[in-house]
């Protein structure tokens, strides 16, 4: 591949990010001007200053996605092991596909009544539980190909060497699965981070994640704030991608 083609491809990939960054520091962009007519860091100052609640949205999104990814990765790793060695493995695994038969919003609409009943409607906890309905089965499907006879033998070996199940997990299974766990955590973080339908329906606007904010600004035709929120939305996954790449390839 020639250097020019390579540079063009890199340029194509980076263009949307550069464009969003430009919009986030722009003000007034009347047609047919090529660039915004004013440049200002005022929008970014709002994030640090706390007005518009953007810093609050960043905190909510980070906390929500980290909790959802950590909970789903941990539980799906454990549950998928039991499913993998169960005589009716296929039947259990097919149940993990059920949430994907419906669209997330339809699933949320079906569950809405129960969330109201449990007092979870419009709360952070409610959105967290709702997202688990999507991320947990995804984790189970992700790990279903991880377990095999060799790992099972390794686990049994730990037992004959005197270890209990907890020690088998802590000393062998989790260290061996480090790369897979990091990849699963990353993917589930992304699913949660960009989730809109469930979050909007169960959160009813009271849990303003960054994704909700972006849609809100777009609906208001607030171009510059939507770009700013999008920049904030993109940064943490990029950071996590870099960390994940280091962990996976080191493993």
């Amino acid at each position: 591949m020639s250097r020019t083609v390579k540079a063009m491809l890199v340029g194509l990939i980076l263009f949307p990010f550069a464009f969003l960054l430009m919009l986030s520091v722009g003000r007034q962009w009347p047609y047919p001007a090529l660039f915004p007519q004013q440049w200002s860091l005022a929008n970014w100052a709002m994030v640090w200053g706390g007005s518009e609640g953007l810093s609050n949205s960043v905190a909510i999104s980070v906390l929500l996605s980290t909790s959802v990814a950590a909970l789903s990765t941990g539980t799906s790793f454990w549950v998928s092991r039991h499913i993998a060695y169960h005589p009716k493995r296929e039947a259990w695994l097919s149940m993990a596909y059920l949430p994907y038969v419906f669209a997330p919003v339809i699933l949320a609409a079906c569950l809405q009544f129960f969330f109201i009943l449990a007092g979870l409607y419009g709360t952070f906890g409610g959105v967290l539980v709702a997202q688990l309905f999507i991320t947990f089965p995804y984790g189970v499907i992700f790990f279903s190909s991880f377990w095999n006879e060799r790992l099972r033998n390794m686990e049994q070996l730990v037992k004959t060497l005197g270890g209990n199940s907890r020690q088998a997990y802590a000393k062998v299974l989790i260290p061996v699965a480090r790369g897979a766990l990091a990849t699963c955590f990353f993917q589930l973080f992304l699913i949660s981070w960009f989730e809109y339908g469930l979050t909007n329906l169960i959160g009813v606007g009271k849990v303003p994640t960054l994704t909700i904010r972006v849609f809100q600004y777009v609906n208001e035709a607030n171009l510059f704030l939507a770009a700013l929120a999008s920049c904030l939305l993109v940064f943490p996954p990029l950071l996590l991608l870099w960390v994940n790449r280091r962990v996976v390839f080191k493993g």
Partner: protein
Amino acid sequence: MLQTKNISKVFQGEQVLEGLSFRINEHEMLSILGRSGSGKTTLLKVLAGLETADRGQVILEGQDITTVPANRRGIVYLYQEALLFPHLNVFENIAFGLRLRKQPESVIKDNVYALLERLELPEQAQKMPEQLSGGQRQRVAFGRALVIEPRVLLLDEPFGALDSETRTNMQDLLKGVAKDYGLTAIFVTHDLKEAMLMGDRMGMMQKGKLNIYDKQADFIADKATGVLEEAQFWINLQDLKK
């Protein structure tokens, strides 16, 4: 030392083990010969506590251990594959059982280095499993089992994946180690010569039934073991040369 009484197991409608009753004495190695699917592995797993028998008892040093979980039996099961823990180096693989028992660091070092020396692996202590040859991996697997001084060692075709030269070396090494450490062991193989070399006594497993021979002559004389057939083959070959 280790005794079984009427062990039976049915798996997916097939009788895998059928009324097995036998006894192994202390410091004795019993080799069991059998084809694939004869029930050898299932028998070892029942003894190790990794599978449950439908009927029968497993008695170790006079104590009924039929319902005792695998991690409290003191019986180590070794697979054909060395199954070294890929995230640990050779030293830590061997030290694994001692670390589970929270032994002091000085005890761990003394025991592990002594075993590394005996298994001719002192130079490999800091290497990772993928840097070892097949024979070296199997030695580390022995070390990992021996370091905890198991009451019984179960070996399920441990040299099955090795080339013939390494296999011969490993057989010699295991015989020596078994003598030095006074091991009580069951050695399962489908290789006739290996069964005769390794066992103080020999057994033949067929369709879930185990026949144990107290004398080597009885094992040779029984047509079912295939020793006579094998010997005849070599005699015929010798005759052809003449």
